[in-house]
């Protein structure tokens, strides 16, 4: 465990910068992805209390505005990142990215059947001085399931986990029946739908944060629309945010129960969208961290300030098998195999992306989930669907014969960022060169449009990605279930469904067996069905001032924690 964690941590740190860029660009539907920074995370942060004499002020850049600070409504990485620093749930990811009790006083008591969790809430306060109670959790979770709230993440994160959540989101049960109950001021009883091995890791996620009922009700529609109408119970509180502006700051929250640990007094944020401008701000010392991408990254490859982190978002081609009610050529497994193996991923990450990303021959990212013994999930399956032109061409020939065609024209749907466009050009060139008779057309659209096309299955091949919402391979594996939320490509394999469902069903309490089931499913998905073609696991490169210490990058939920961060040697 130790060693892998270290590696993992290091990788985490890498993550930080891309975020922004990534959000808008070539990633999955607005989920948060986690990252890490802090160059010395492996060694330093956990230890000593530094001498705090310097101004403990951090200056950061964000790539997008805050859409909302309402934890029930947040769907984007900026929101999750800030909530992680202004608020606290039952659990919090620690410096080693392990969810540990936070507002929960200690580990919960769990019933024998693994269904009922009883948490004791510690003495903590909201930033207005009122106490955080068990009722605040009950209120928040039920609010997230209330159809009137129209929360996207509520039903998504709670369905299949909390008792009745699935039924509530289907509209058959009232949201007040959700399996969460404040037994008294300080005792929270949570009932699950079925035993869920990763339940506790969910407890650090933004959607599961508590909300101060009196405050939220009093604010009504105005809740969390600016820094005056939001309460925090975490290390920092939000200030100077007008709801739509390009700047805001976090200041230390003296009411936080663990305020003694928090060293930073202020974090100033500015939204800057031009990467070149961000780097310029960094160079002139105005900002303490700058994400790098593409060609800019190359120039800083040897910079001592450079921090590389491996993110946990994985990008892949989705092969749509049915478009407008008709089977596409991609319904043919050989065609899919040919494309999956038909482009050079190494060149892509080395030259085109050049941002610390690594080749992905898998779906569940490396350095993300580990067994009890610290063994990476990746060790089970190894590489699948590796780039291999001969195999690709053989499969292509076979596929064309089966289809009775000599040439095919396919469309690649991608994002509209500069990087996404560059990637698409590369794919086009690679595939057209390697697969004779293939013509690729490119379609590059804004994120919202891509989502729409995805929902309507109106594409052939889509360059998409996914970042985890909790620390379990299931967060990736459930995407391709026959009725999976992200399937949208008519992939259906009963065996795959069976394997994945068993991992959260009958095998839920058997760690080894469910692990094996998911690994088998992954193999089925990628190496036998070629349902998707993994491309790369995102890495990030950023410049971080050496005096910034103790920032923790996370692999899911909010990107960074500044709770332990401090400035030294500025």
């Amino acid at each position: 465990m130790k060693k892998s964690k270290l590696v993992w941590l290091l990788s985490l740190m890498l993550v930080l910068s891309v975020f922004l860029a990534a959000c808008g660009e070539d990633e999955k539907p607005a989920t948060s992805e986690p990252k890490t920074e802090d160059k010395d995370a492996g060694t330093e942060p956990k230890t000593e209390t530094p001498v705090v004499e310097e101004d403990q002020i951090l200056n950061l850049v964000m790539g997008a505005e805050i859409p909302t600070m309402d934890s029930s409504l947040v769907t984007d990485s900026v929101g999750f990142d800030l909530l992680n620093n202004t608020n606290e749930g039952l659990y919090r990811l620690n410096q080693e990215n392990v969810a540990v009790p936070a507002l929960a006083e200690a580990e919960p008591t769990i019933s024998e059947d693994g269904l009922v969790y009883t948490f004791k809430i510690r003495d903590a306060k909201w930033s207005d001085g009122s106490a955080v109670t068990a009722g605040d959790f009950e209120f928040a979770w039920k609010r997230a399931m209330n159809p009137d709230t129209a929360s996207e993440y509520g039903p998504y994160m709670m369905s299949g986990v909390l008792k009745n959540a699935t039924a509530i989101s289907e509209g058959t049960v009232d949201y007040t029946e959700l399996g969460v109950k404040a037994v008294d001021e300080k005792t929270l009883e949570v009932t699950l739908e079925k035993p869920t091995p990763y339940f506790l890791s969910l407890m650090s996620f933004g959607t599961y944060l508590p909300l101060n009922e009196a405050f939220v009700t009093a604010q009504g529609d105005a809740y969390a629309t600016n820094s005056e109408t939001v309460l925090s119970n975490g290390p920092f509180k939000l200030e100077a945010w007008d709801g739509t502006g390009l700047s805001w700051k976090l200041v230390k929250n003296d009411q936080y129960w663990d305020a003694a640990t928090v060293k930073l007094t202020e974090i100033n944020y500015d939204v800057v969208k031009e990467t070149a401008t961000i780097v310029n701000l960094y160079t002139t010392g105005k900002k303490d961290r700058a994400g790098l991408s593409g060609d800019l990254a190359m120039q800083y490859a040897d910079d001592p300030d450079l921090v590389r982190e491996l993110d946990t978002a994985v990008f892949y081609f989705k092969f749509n098998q049915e478009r407008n009610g008709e089977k596409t050529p991609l319904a043919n497994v050989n065609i899919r195999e040919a494309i999956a193996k038909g482009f050079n991923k190494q060149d892509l990450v080395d030259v085109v992306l050049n941002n610390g990303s690594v080749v992905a021959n898998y779906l569940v990212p490396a350095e993300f989930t580990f067994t009890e013994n610290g063994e990476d999930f990746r060790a089970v399956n190894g590489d699948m669907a590796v780039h291999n032109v001969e195999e690709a061409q053989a499969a292509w020939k076979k596929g064309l014969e089966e289809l009775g065609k000599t040439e095919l024209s396919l469309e690649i749907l991608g994002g509209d960022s500069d990087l996404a466009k560059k990637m698409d050009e590369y794919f086009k060139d690679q595939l057209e060169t390697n697969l004779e008779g293939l013509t690729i057309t490119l379609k590059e659209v804004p994120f919202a449009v891509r989502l729409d096309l995805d929902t309507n299955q109106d594409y052939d091949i889509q360059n998409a990605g996914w970042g985890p919402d909790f620390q379990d391979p299931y967060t990736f594996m459930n995407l391709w279930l026959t009725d999976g939320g992200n399937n949208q490509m008519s992939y259906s394999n009963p065996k795959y469904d069976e394997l994945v469902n068993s991992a959260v069903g009958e095998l839920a309490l058997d760690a080894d067996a469910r692990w094996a089931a998911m690994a088998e499913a992954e193999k089925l998905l990628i190496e036998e069905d070629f349902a998707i073609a993994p491309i790369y696991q995102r890495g990030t490169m950023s410049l971080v001032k050496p005096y910034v210490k103790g920032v923790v990058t996370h692999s899911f939920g909010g990107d960074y924690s500044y709770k332990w961060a401090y400035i030294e040697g500025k």
Partner: protein
Amino acid sequence: MAKYIVKRVFYMFITLFLIATATFFLMKTLPGSPISSASKLNPQQLAVVEAKYGLDQPLPVQYGKYMLNLVQGDLGNSYQFKGADVTDLIISRLGPSFILGAQGLILGVAIGIILGMIAALKQNTIWDYGSTFIAIIGISIPSFVFATFLQYWLAIKWELLPVALWDDGWKSSIMPSIALAMGPLATAARFIRTEMIEVLSSDYITLAKSKGASSFEVAFKHAFRNALIPLVTVLGPLAAGLLTGSLVIENIFAIPGIGEQFVKAIMVSDFSVIMGTTLFFSVFLIFVILVVDILYGIIDPRIRLSGGNS
């Protein structure tokens, strides 16, 4: 005059009405749902959200409501910022855009006039070519390239000015203003040059010269004042150019202005912000053109309103 203004204002409203209508229906034909999470919401929730934005009603009703709200100055709610009021959003972004626009315009026109004067008075000399060259550079280099150059030299190499952001008072506004000024500068310089040359060759200048007025007196007292008047007519197009510039410049310098927000709204398909900003830009432009026309009518008695002259 009054009649003319009333007539113009009337047309102004027709224009705005058409723009509002066209934008509304164009937005409805755009691909992509404005509700970012539409694909993830269940039907019940989707209904709630659609009701909130009035998307559950038939199109004519939506249109009617939109126009009705518009009359009351309500531009609807933003999709990207959960429920934020578009009118408030635009107002909150007005300040920086206005300051930069005004500074850019004044700076550009002032320098443009000087360059134009020099060029006209020293026609076909190195001075003329030099100032013409500067003016043409102003319209030949895309503003984002020019802005990048400024950033690189003024902020990074020489460390004279802040790189970007809107937090250092007037210093923050210098580079973006210079970048914005290039367009107006070029237009004004070329315009003044042409006008001055024409005026300088007119009879009354010859008369003034023959009566012994110094060339300085001729240039400033007679020619310049007359050349300046028609410059008013290009202010409308110049203002339009500034809008274009602001989209680019505000992004590069991370200025919290309207242009920056407009580009963002396009990227994330925030239809209500796109519509609101479009209308705002239109009102602004139409208003500027109207004011310029009226002003021109007042300054130059020869042009008594034979129809707006921009």
